[in-house]
């Protein structure tokens, strides 16, 4: 969560990707290099820009399920609870 570990983990969990493939996929979707994925300074800025959740939740930024809606779009990934939210709220 300090960098991009949660995003890489999502690709392992959702698509069964090994670590190198998962890192490459996330890096491409975020338009960063693989080595930048573990830099908390760079990733905080990227996460803030993309509104995909960050350690320090600034006023007005996407948090919790809001951020996961964004994340689902950015990673082109089905997220179970996001789909469930859409069903429950008739979005």
């Amino acid at each position, binding site marked *: 969560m300090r960098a991009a570990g949660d995003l890489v983990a999502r690709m392992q969990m959702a698509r069964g990707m090994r670590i190198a493939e998962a890192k490459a996929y996330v890096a491409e979707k975020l338009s960063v290099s693989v080595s930048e994925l573990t830099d908390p300074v760079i990733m905080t800025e990227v996460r803030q820009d993309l509104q995909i959740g960050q350690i320090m939740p600034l006023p007005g930024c996407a948090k919790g399920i809001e951020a996961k809606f964004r994340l689902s779009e950015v990673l082109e990934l089905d*997220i179970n609870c996001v789909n469930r939210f859409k069903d429950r709220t008739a979005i």
Partner: protein
Amino acid sequence: MATILTRYGDGTMLTMSEKELMQDLEAGTQDAAERGNIPALSKEELAHLFDIFSLPYNFVSVEPGNEVVLTYDAGTLKIRRVGVNVDRIQALQIYEKIMGADTMELCHVDYSFKPIKPIVTMEQPILEQALLSTHVPLFYGAMPNLGTYTQPDGPFPNPSELMPMGDIEGSRASYDATVEEAVKDIVYAARAMHASGADGINLDTVGAAGEADFKASLMAADILKKEFPEICIELGMAGEFILGMHGEMEWEGTRLAGMYPHEQVKMAEKAGVTIFGPVVNTNTSESSPWNLSRAITFMKACCDVATIPIHVNMGMGVGAVTVNDHPPVDVVSRASKAMVEICRLDGL
């Protein structure tokens, strides 16, 4: 000659000469190779382990860019175990925002699927609310724990009582019956948590009650994966070796007793498991170099044949980590570094 400061598997401090260090590294890999019928570590890999143990620093790590992700078992249980009196959703938030966790697991203090079944409707709203306020992927996890299905805790005759009386058939029939019931409970709870939005289901401490435990987990994973092809199932083992309590139990035509991690992972893949968590147990009377060399040998063989992500269990008493409630960081960091750099695994 330099003196190496390290530890025994029970955590007590130990000093070794460079010669003794290399002897223990060689003995550890040889032990694993003989037990698992797998290749021993190469000279280059042993030399890399030697270098890691020779580093004078307390904490060591991998080079930037080589980091791996972490999954956790029983996270919300452990925060209560250490006496931090917070609600489970708060525990998830603490792990996510204060500890920077990559993933987390919601679980109940009675960490087995059997007791979860009757209270699953009380667990679902907790997960649903947690998912609204957290960011990291959330597992719901518990143990298959087939020991809870036999008397006096469960309905079936206890094989540990039948075996000394010579009732082999009765004992085996009891194990078969526990598998059937455990599969029902695991599938029931997992279906409910998947419906509530869980990102994954964690079957933890698999194999603790022998091959019946492993078989029930494989069968449950197989059913869930066929029903929900998109579901993520993590299967974390209890020990390095599938205990043959039954002796002849099979799944998909393969005998389960006696399997080591590189064989277990192939069964997990066949069952549709998404992430596999192998275990190597720590020997408390051997040194950390011996334990790590042995653990790496098993884990490398497992990672070499795996086609799914491997998250090696690294905690108290497993993965060459010492048997302490608060494992020393010198051992944890050396073991983690070696696992990532030699095994090319996907997570811890």
